[in-house]
């Protein structure tokens, strides 16, 4: 029988010229196993596509995986578009390989959290849950 409760919705994307999707698929699968609705949008997305999809899907969280080194261009652009769309209540999370000082800068810009390559799956699930709880209902 059908249930009636709200579930955390997460949109997962690979943005830009980056074909390494093993990690992002594992993340998607872990979040699914933690009971979330995960919208996977595949490879080579643009920031515009990600933000439009996130608004239509009314997600709580956008997770972007970047292993190409373009994170200092892509994350600020996504933040900017979210603001333009009036959707800055959507939490933006990043994953991938990045320099520590970049992580600090990105978080200052408004990325909710960056999880680097050695983050255990349980920690990813916990971070998503904690951040969504902190943000509260909307």
């Amino acid at each position, binding site marked *: 029988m059908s249930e*009636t409760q*709200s579930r955390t919705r997460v949109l997962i994307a690979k943005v830009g010229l980056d074909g390494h999707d093993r990690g992002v698929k594992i993340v998607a699968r872990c979040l699914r196993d933690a009971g979330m609705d995960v919208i996977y949008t595949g490879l080579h997305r643009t920031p515009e596509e990600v933000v439009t*999809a996130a608004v*239509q899907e*009314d997600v709580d969280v956008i997770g972007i995986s970047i292993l190409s080194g373009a994170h200092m261009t892509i994350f600020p652009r996504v933040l900017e578009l979210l603001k333009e769309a009036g959707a800055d209540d959507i939490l933006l999370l990043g994953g991938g390989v990045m320099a520590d000082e970049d992580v600090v800068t990105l978080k200052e810009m408004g990325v909710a959290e960056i999880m680097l390559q050695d983050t255990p799956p349980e920690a990813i699930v916990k971070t998503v849950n904690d951040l969504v709880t902190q943000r509260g209902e909307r």
Partner: protein
Amino acid sequence: MPIASIELVEKILAGETHSIARLISRAEAGSQECREAMAKLYKHSGKTHIIGVTGVPGSGKSTLMKSLAEGFRHEGHKVGIIAVDPSSPFSGGAILGDRIRMNELTADTGIFIRSMATRGALGGLARATLDAVDVLDAAGFDVVFIETVGVGQDEVDIVQAAHTTMVVSAPGLGDEIQAIKAGVLEIADIHTVSKCDRADANKTITDLKQMLMLGLEHSEPKKWPVPVIGSSAHTGEGVDTLIKTINQHYQYLNDSGEIAAKCETIARNRIIKYTENILYKQFTERCNELFQEVITRVTNREEDPHSAAETLLTTFK
């Protein structure tokens, strides 16, 4: 402080994307708070052509949908898409991957795509699928596609949810005996065989056509002869014909008056589903303890399942 659902109504009627998306989420969560807003929107709905697209997993439903949505946009229609994928029966979570096939559509503001997980509902749809259709309908979308989960043989709820049902078959899956079985293949108003650029597609088209010519119902000529159309999202073949046929079917429903019966079926089915949901909720709330007891008794073979159900219902009344 979250915005009240009732305040979203005006924005939805004006077609505002955020509000549409937010109210669908609340309807999906089964929130009581959005009931008034949904009731208000329902009165503004009833103008949209609802098209169901169903078929086995991997038959090409999402890919074909992308081509069809582009076609309908070309005719100047606003297009909504509700794409349903299954929830895990274990964790309750879901991977919703239909958007991957439709990413090019995202740039078009006249197209709204929403992914939805089944959340335990059987029959190929999610519980809130038609609530989402109501919202899009009221927001001025002329055509709304519902893409079911990849179905097996028996998930036929879509026929009680859509005006026009299209069944997508892929070439190379099973012989002509599969085609004469009961279930999904019977419900089509339009059959399409996807990937028809493949050499074995003709065989599947023939099998389906022959299936449609068998049987008692064909002793009289049918008012809507179900067409079998080959299509390929890859080469674009057949897509225009499909769009034309979908429009013709809607025209036929309206001309013949069959649309009234369809709408009544949809309404009846929705009322039954809501009643079931409400009853089930009250039932589990009120009979939970006794429920656990009879589960144990039935498991230990002290009581049979049918009598247990009767015992429970007596208490419920």
